């Protein structure tokens, strides 16, 4: 593996190496990109990982099936809820139980709220990366409202830790439905504002259109998933292909585009936000009454075997692979994180563009670094 990454490259005349990261404003974390440049043009990129490795997978081997779920909140911290849900679903698969109908619907609503808040943060940072500071504050206004709902119902804003095998940890807050509807109303009004300040801006379109072209073939061979792949015309929405929780019962569109450039990736996410709003609207008035948690044993032991569950996070497909030896903690856990695969395509699609474009490409791939390293 090491030989594969550290492929020898002799710097030619007129080229020089620049290290973007691990501390750099537009890598959004401790990603280190070694970039060979000729003037401003990118010749080659080498991502270096490992600056935020916390061995979450190894740690999980010592944790019980209830506890390891919460370690995943720290992977893709913008979609902590969805990570938790994936693990809970995997454990449920092993136990051969299903969450209660109420828990399923609430999980889906919270997942979509998470997706909304994550996409809003992505929108904010995309503007920031391209030099427009104001969108950041616009998006955070709505994101705060969503996080307040999370705070009220889950007890935490970012690392919700609300999922347990069999359902939810607690019942939803009495205000949950009312507040969610209020927030949705606010968000729907503000979509136009988002479009006014960034989507239609001629400088923004020039910066992103035709930049960082990702072909469908490349997306497929690099394992790119999520909105990044869907912008290249690759249908890969797990919510459609392998529906889980309450997704089979809701009506929504998988947004696809064929352009494959940064602007297309941008538009996909903007449209996905509207889809998320629509999904929540379908479910929010139809939360079934009943238990919020299926009865499980105090000490969960999964039968011997291998269990795999995949979910759609805001950044793509997250897979949880559990190998069980029949003990109270997993024998081995492997996460297939969307960001790792999405990052792997960066050197290919950024080649030949300018430094400014690299920032735009990284922004529209929407990388969350702790998810890459785990």
């Amino acid at each position, binding site marked *: 593996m090491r030989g594969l990454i550290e492929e020898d490259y002799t710097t030619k005349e007129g080229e020089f190496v620049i290290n973007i990261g691990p501390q750099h404003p537009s890598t959004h974390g401790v990603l280190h990109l070694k970039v060979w440049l000729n003037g401003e043009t990118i010749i080659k990129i080498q991502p270096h990982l490992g600056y935020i490795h916390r061995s979450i997978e190894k740690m999980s081997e010592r944790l019980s099936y209830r506890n390891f779920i919460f370690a995943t909140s720290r992977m893709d911290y913008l979609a902590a809820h969805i990570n938790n849900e994936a693990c809970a679903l995997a454990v449920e698969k092993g136990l051969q139980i299903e969450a209660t109908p109420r828990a399923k619907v609430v999980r889906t609503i919270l997942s979509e709220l998470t997706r909304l808040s994550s996409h809003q943060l992505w929108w904010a940072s995309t503007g920031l990366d391209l030099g*427009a500071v104001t969108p950041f504050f616009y998006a955070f206004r709505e994101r705060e409202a969503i996080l307040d709902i999370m705070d009220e119902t889950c007890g935490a804003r970012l690392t919700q830790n609300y999922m347990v095998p069999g359902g939810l940890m607690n019942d939803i807050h009495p205000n949950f439905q009312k507040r969610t509807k209020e927030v949705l109303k606010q968000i729907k009004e503000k979509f136009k504002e988002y479009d006014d300040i960034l989507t239609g801006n001629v400088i923004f379109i020039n910066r992103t259109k035709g930049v960082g072209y990702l072909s469908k073939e490349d997306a497929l061979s690099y394992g790119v998933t999520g909105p990044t792949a869907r912008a290249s015309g690759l249908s890969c929405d797990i919510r459609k292909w392998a529906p889980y929780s309450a997704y089979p019962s809701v009506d929504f569109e998988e947004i696809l585009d064929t352009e494959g450039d940064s602007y297309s990736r941008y538009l996909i996410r903007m449209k996905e936000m509207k889809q998320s709003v629509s999904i929540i609207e379908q479910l929010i008035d139809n939360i079934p009454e009943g238990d919020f948690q299926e009865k499980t044993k105090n000490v969960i032991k999964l039968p011997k075997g291998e269990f795999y569950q995949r979910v759609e996070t805001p950044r793509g497909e997250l897979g949880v692979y559990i190998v069980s030896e029949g003990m109270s903690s997993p024998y081995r856990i492997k996460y297939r994180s969307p960001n790792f695969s999405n990052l792997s395509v960066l050197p290919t699609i950024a080649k030949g563009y300018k430094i400014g474009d690299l920032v735009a490409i990284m922004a529209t791939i929407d990388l969350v670094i702790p998810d890459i390293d785990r």
Partner: protein
Amino acid sequence: MKSVILYSLSGFSTYIHNLLSSNIGNNLILLITELTIIGITLLISLVLLCFFLGWMERRVAAFMELRLGPNRVGPQGTLQIVADTVKLLFKEGLTPSKSDKFLFNLAPFIVVVAAMMAIAPLAFAKNFSIFDINIGVLYVSSVSSLSVLGVLMAGWSSYNKYSLLGAMRSGAQIVSYELSVGLSLIAIVVLSGNTSLGEIINSQQNGWWIFKGHIPAIIAFVIFIIASTAEINRAPFDLAEADQELTGGFNTEYSGMKFAMFLLAEYINLFVVSAMGATLFLGGWMPFHIGNWESFNQIMDYIPSFVWFMGKTFLIIFIIMWFRWTFPRLRVDQLLKLEWKYLLPISMINIILITLIAIMGWHF
């Protein structure tokens, strides 16, 4: 016109001159004393101005971004920037070990001096400019282009690739946009037939050039605003700094007071270009008059000329701040394309139109 003279600052400056000359016999010493007084006054007022601009920028940004901005230190947060400056004064000014120390330390001074020199011919009020040189327009445009030297020095001497990239971007950018700024300045020189800023203002007594020069003057004004924003390295043309790409560009390695001097220069430059825009296109300190509305015009005359000048300047400053906080940044090739493919050809055609207007006497 009586009322305008009422608010002229020339009486004040004449009074000081008379006071000094009655006490100091030697002409040379008198000159030196007067120059020192002007220099110190200028320095203090420029620093105060930059404090105000810094505060204004933060408040304008906050206004655009649904925030409050600094509002704790002093009334409405006006002293926040003073506190920040004091902090910067006490910070250690690091010099990278492999840098070219002489150039590294010289660069901020060159940038600031170039910015301050451009203040000289500006008329802040009626009959109140430091040095109304007869080639004022030429002087300002040439002196303000000196700052690129400082930026290049800073980028080169920092021994940092980000800085170097920033400096190279800045060099290409300032050299290119100089052309458009120059051509839009020439538009007014052609219309007024004068290069002295005082004379240009006087030629706008019966109407500002932006109104008198038909559409070409408006085009020249818009090009001037765009190109001068690029020339002073402000967003959306702040490629030389580009925090998100180059982590600060040419000033990456600067800290403490040396860094503050780049900020100081940026704000002085902002003021200079806005003041130039106000002087050339919006009539400098000339009050706003409408045709034959005698009573309205008289009320306008009662507003001091200094207020008129500052009002117009700050209007332009506000516009420049406005689009700094709204637009994304251009890419380096798009920046050059904008200048060479759009702004320059448009300004060239515009110059022909303006010349035609001036020769035929079509302007009002």
